[in-house]
Every structure is written in structure tokens, then in C-alpha cells.
């Protein structure tokens, strides 16, 4: 194996994985067989110790031999037939057609897709100390242009690791994040109030139209409460102007996602001819950064004033970052910007899907309601510490994210040569980890299209789900840093909503399908009824 591996990589290096390589390989194998049987042909020991049948079975194949759609077919699928919004479905189709590992070309970019949980486990378990997700050149270019720092999403290597080391110590341990329980609960209070206001505006007195709009505001308010230590007023009837401006910038970022994502891929010389994508990209980042700057500076000024007065400074995440100076002010701006960007849509889409699935499966909703009644009763407000006694609420979030993984695929750039699924993958290859496909694979989840919470409920502490099939937050050192905050926001809000309301489908809601818009999101408005319990 080792010998063959070395040999193949040598071939790859020398011949660039051309068809000549394949021919040479055949020659080598023929020669090898005769050598092994002939025994004394002066063949080097290395060759002689590999039995021919092993060579047959474990021959490492080249990327060239990997199946996948043709470049032209892909081009038509994505640019002509707007495949970007169906990218999750295409992923599923391709994995069925080409297997668990296949290659695709997006213009000059070669992507190796992995739709197998064991291969995903292999990639994630063996990754280095600073894994790279994908090409972030356009993000970096904007930051260089404006003299801004990179944050956790856009940074790589040593810069990334240093910032990650600071931030993970603050917001990744569940017990540290539990400290935000009261802050988040105040936002949940406002969410409940807002639902009560919104439903009075509809003729049935129960429907809230487009719940994602509501959950977007909830998530934004909750993240800001933790990140900026202030309230934005998103859930008020009159949303403050600066918050509205931010939401507009965020929408611009995502509405032009297709173009902005490729803004960096469009050659720079083309920008003078087609300037719009790059301009919009910069405009939306300007808006996002501006919002963070305002809030970070505001807190910074407060802290300064307190220190000048000789007062004790108390506070949360932002205060800690500003006072301890483990990161520069620019790094704090950049991370506040990127964390807010990453923490709003992701949570709101998942909450929209979770409530939609609850409405579609009333018996599941009743089971959870019963669990909540047993644990909390009708009136007690759930806290972070109660969640351990609400296994069905945890299961609801997991099963929702299995159905609708908010990031249908995630990226990695290989940092070493590796053999994956029998193929030689050279260092620097862009991998796509196909979470959507593995989540809906019957092999990983029996009757995968059934919405079943019991998949996630453990009989006891040794009852384990050996499964890389559904890892919506990723795994390991570069997994989602906001995971525990997002879970807290979802567990607390979903528990309260089920405790307080019966959630039903509104007659004006059709069957809602997912579409990809950067993230996996509802393809149509989800309208739900919130009917008081009691």
C-alpha cells in the first residue's frame, strides 16, 4: 500500500495525472506480476513484497478517473438553468448518479464532493490545526481595500487560530454560554409579545405571515444582546433607523449572493466592464461593518467613561474583548461583523423550519408539549439548565437541522496529499462536504424522509449514534463558533413557543420547499397560526 501510494504520487508529480500516467500504471502492473512470479529479476525489494492481488484491489486512482458531471453540463445546469438555487438537490442527484465521491468543475475551479459519512469523518478527523474552508480572496481583498481586519470567517492560518483561540474560550463552552440564558429570555419575552401583536393584524386573529421575518428579528436581537451587550429594538413595532439600515445591508449581501460570491472570481480586468457585482459586494460590506463599528464604539466609549470615573467595569463578551485587548480594535470590529452576519439567517431559517415541521406534525408537537408540561408546567420560564431535562427539544433542533441543514455543503481545502475513497487527492484541492446528501441518506438514517425525533433520544448514556451523517455545525477546530449560542437561542425560544401556543399551519401556506440562497432557506413564505394553549 505504502509503496503503491508513493509510486502513484510520484507519477502524479511527474506526469500531472495524465492518461499517460494510467498507461504507465498498466505497464507497471503487468511487469509487476511477472516480476513477482519470476522472483529473481533483480527487482527492487520494495516491489517484490507487494502481492499482485493487493495491488489490484488497493490501486490508488487518480482524480482523472473520478466520475462526475462534465464541465459543460455543469455550466448549463448552474448558469443557464439557475442551479444555484437547487444546489442541494443537484448535490443529491449527483451523489446518486456518480457515487459518494465525485468531481465537478465550476469554471476554473475543480471541486471534489464527498457525500459519504465515513469519508467526511476521515477528512475532519485528520485535519490540521488551522483548517481552510475555501477561497476567501474576495473577502480579504475588500478588507485590504478598506484597511479592515479579517474575522473568523475570512481569516486563515495563524491569524485565524489566534482569534479563534480567544473567542472559543468565551462563547463555546456550554456552561459559559448558559450565562446568557437570562439575556436571551428577555428577547424571547419580546418574541412572544410580537407574535401576539402580529396575529391581531390578521382576520383569523391567529396567523403570523412569513414567520422567517419574525425569527430573523428575534435572532438578530438575541445575537446583538450577546455580542454588543445592547438591545436593537428589532421586535418593536417601530424598528430604529440604524437597525433598518443594517437589515438592508444584510439583505443586499444575500440578495446579490450569487453575484457577490463570484465577485472575487470575476477577473479584476473585467470589473471595469461589469462593475456592478464588485460594487454591490463592497457596498454591502460597508453597511455591515458600519453597523458593528457604531455598536462597538458605543460600548468602548462607555467603558472609557467608566474607567475615567474610577468605576468598576462590568459587562459581557464585548466588554471582555475591549478590556483585555487580546485582539486589536480592528479585529474586534471584523469579528463582531462576521459573527453577526453568521448568526442571524442561520438561526432564523432553522427556527422557521422547526415551527413549520411542528405544524406539519401535530402529534410530535403534542409529545414535546407533554414533556414541557411535565418538566416545567404551564408557567415556569425555561432556562439553559432546564434543557438537559427536555430531550425532545434538543431532538427537535437536531432533526430539523438534519432535514434542512442550513449549510447544505461546507468546504475544505486539503492541506496535505491524501487518499480518499481510493482516489489520490493532491494538496490544495477544494473539497465540498455534502451534508444535505448524507443527512437524507437512508444508510445513515433509516427512513430518512420521516420526521422522527426518537432518532436522537438516548436510552442511556452509553446509547450512541455513530454518525457523521448529520453534523450541521461541523466538527472539530473549525466548526461553528456560534453553535452553543444558536442552540441556546433555539432551545429557549422553541420551548417557550410550544409551552404557550399551539402552532398550526395557516390555510394560506402551501407546501414549502427549500431553496439554496447561499444557505438552505424556505423557498416560499411560511405562514403559521399561533393559538393560545390553556
Amino acid at each position: 500500500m505504502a509503496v503503491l501510494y508513493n509510486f502513484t504520487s510520484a507519477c502524479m508529480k511527474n506526469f500531472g495525472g495524465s492518461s499517460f500516467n494510467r498507461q504507465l500504471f498498466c505497464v507497471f502492473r503487468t511487469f509487476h506480476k511477472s516480476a513477482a512470479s519470476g522472483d529473481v529479476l533483480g527487482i527492487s525489494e520494495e516491489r517484490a513484497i507487494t502481492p499482485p492481488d493487493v495491488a489490484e484491489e488497493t490501486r490508488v486512482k487518480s482524480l482523472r478517473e473520478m466520475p462526475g458531471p462534465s464541465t459543460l453540463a455543469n455550466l448549463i445546469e448552474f448558469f443557464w438553468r439557475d442551479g444555484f438555487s437547487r444546489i442541494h438537490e443537484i448535490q443529491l442527484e449527483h451523489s446518486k448518479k456518480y457515487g459518494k465521491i465525485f468531481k465537478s468543475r465550476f469554471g476554473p475551479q475543480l471541486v471534489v464532493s464527498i457525500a459519504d459519512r465515513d469519508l467526511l469523518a476521515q477528512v475532519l478527523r485528520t485535519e490540521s490545526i488551522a483548517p481552510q474552508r475555501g477561497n476567501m480572496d474576495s473577502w480579504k481583498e475588500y478588507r485590504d481595500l478598506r484597511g479592515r481586519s479579517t474575522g473568523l470567517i475570512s481569516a486563515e492560518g495563524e491569524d485565524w487560530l489566534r482569534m479563534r483561540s480567544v473567542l472559543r474560550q468565551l462563547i463555546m463552552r456550554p456552561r459559559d454560554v448558559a450565562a446568557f440564558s437570562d439575556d436571551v429570555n428577555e428577547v424571547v419575552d419580546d418574541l412572544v409579545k410580537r407574535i401576539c401583536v402580529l396575529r391581531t393584524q390578521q382576520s383569523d386573529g391567529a396567523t403570523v405571515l412569513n414567520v422567517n421575518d419574525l425569527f430573523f428579528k428575534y435572532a438578530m436581537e438575541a445575537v446583538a444582546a450577546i455580542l454588543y451587550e445592547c438591545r436593537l429594538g428589532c421586535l418593536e413595532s417601530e424598528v430604529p433607523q440604524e437597525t433598518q439600515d443594517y437589515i438592508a445591508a444584510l439583505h443586499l449581501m444575500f440578495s446579490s449572493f450569487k453575484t457577490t460570491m463570484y465577485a472575487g472570481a470575476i477577473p479584476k480586468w473585467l470589473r471595469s466592464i461589469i462593475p456592478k457585482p464588485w460594487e454591490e459586494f463592497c457596498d454591502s460590506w460597508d453597511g455591515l461593518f458600519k453597523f458593528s463599528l457604531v455598536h462597538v464604539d458605543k460600548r468602548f466609549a462607555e467603558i472609557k467613561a467608566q474607567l475615567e470615573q474610577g468605576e468598576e467595569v462590568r459587562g459581557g463578551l464585548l466588554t471582555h474583548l475591549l478590556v483585555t485587548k487580546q485582539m486589536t480594535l480592528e479585529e474586534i470590529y471584523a469579528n463582531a461583523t462576521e459573527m453577526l452576519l453568521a448568526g442571524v439567517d442561520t438561526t432564523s431559517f432553522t427556527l422557521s423550519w422547526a415551527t413549520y415541521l411542528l405544524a406539519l406534525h401535530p402529534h410530535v408537537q403534542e409529545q414535546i408539549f407533554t414533556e414541557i408540561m411535565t418538566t416545567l408546567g404551564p408557567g415556569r420560564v425555561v432556562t439553559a439548565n432546564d434543557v438537559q431535562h427536555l430531550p425532545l427539544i434538543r431532538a427537535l433542533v437536531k432533526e430539523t437541522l438534519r432535514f434542512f441543514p442550513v449549510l447544505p455543503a461546507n468546504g475544505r481545502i486539503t492541506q496535505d496529499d491524501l487518499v480518499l475513497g481510493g482516489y489520490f487527492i493532491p494538496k490544495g484541492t477544494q473539497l465540498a462536504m455534502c451534508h444535505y446528501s448524507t443527512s437524507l441518506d437512508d444508510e445513515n438514517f433509516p427512513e430518512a424522509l420521516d420526521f422522527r425525533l426518537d432518532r436522537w433520544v438516548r436510552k442511556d448514556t452509553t446509547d450512541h449514534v455513530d454518525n457523521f451523517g448529520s453534523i450541521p455545525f461541523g466538527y472539530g477546530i473549525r466548526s461553528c463558533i456560534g453553535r452553543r449560542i444558536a442552540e441556546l437561542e433555539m432551545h429557549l425560544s422553541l420551548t417557550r413557543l410550544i409551552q404557550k401556543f399551539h402552532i398550526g399551519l395557516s390555510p394560506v401556506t402551501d407546501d414549502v420547499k427549500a431553496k439554496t440562497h447561499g444557505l438552505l432557506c424556505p423557498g416560499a413564505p411560511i405562514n403559521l397560526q399561533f393559538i393560545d394553549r390553556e
Partner: protein
Amino acid sequence: MALAAALRRLAPVALGAFPRRTTAVTLGCGSRLAGTRRLSAGTQPLRSDNKVTIHFINRDGEKVTVKGSSGDTLLDVVINEDLDFDGFGACEGTLACSTCHLIFDEEVYKKLGRVTDEEMDMLDLAYGLTETSRLGCQICLTKSLDGMVARVPESVTDIRQSKDETA
């Protein structure tokens, strides 16, 4: 490669230098922020009767005996004692990976305390999981654990290497 090596060196330094208990601040429970507390137990002189002996069995099957302080986690011990278990504790005890996976005898396993949901979720993704597996970052040392044995399971890389060698 040079970068990777540099980062490997950087990681334990960053961990050691960072005060482990920053929660006081996030909790908003009134600790003074200006002078961040240093609570790295390893740097404080502790009375010897607070020490707990641990026998690690490394991936080569060798026994490594060290002492840790009550209240420290097994991951703290591995870092403080500079034990060379490749890739161990990659996320610095923040429950984002399962690289500090350890295997215990059944007797010891029963004494290790409650497993949280978050730890179980991470154990689901551990390589070579057993019924007496735990994450080292979640095990706090107590005097009753004195003399415990903790086995470091083989990693994915070990398996591949041994396969390569036999081939």
C-alpha cells in the same frame, strides 16, 4: 508545513497563556476586568495532598504516570505535564471536537461523574468509541480518582500508518 509546525508550537502556548476562567466576565457577576484573573491551576503551588496520580497509557501502550491537581481536568493535566499525545485536545476543551477521547476501566468510569448532553454528542463522533469512553476535558480530578488509568485510543492516523506498514 513550516506553518503547521509553527502553529503546533503556538497552540499550547496560547492555551497556557490564556486565563481559563473568563466566564466571570461573561457572567457579569462583578469581577474586575482590568486585572484579569489567572487561574491556570498548574502555575499555582498546591499542597501535595491535593495531588492526584494518573496513569496514562499512550498510543504505543506505554504507561506514563503523572500527577494532577484536584479540580483540574484530564486535558489540563495533559497540557500542564506536556504529554505528547498527537492531536490531543485540539479545541482546547471547548466541546467542539473529540480529540481528548480517553478510555477507562469500568470501575473508574462509574466514578467519573455525570456526562452532559453536549459531551455525549461529541463522543458520538469519537474514533474508536467504547462503552467506557469519556472526553478528557470534561473529567475533573478528585481525590477519589487517585491512581486511575486512562488509555489514549489509537487515532485515525495511527490506523492508517499501521495499515501502510503492513502493506
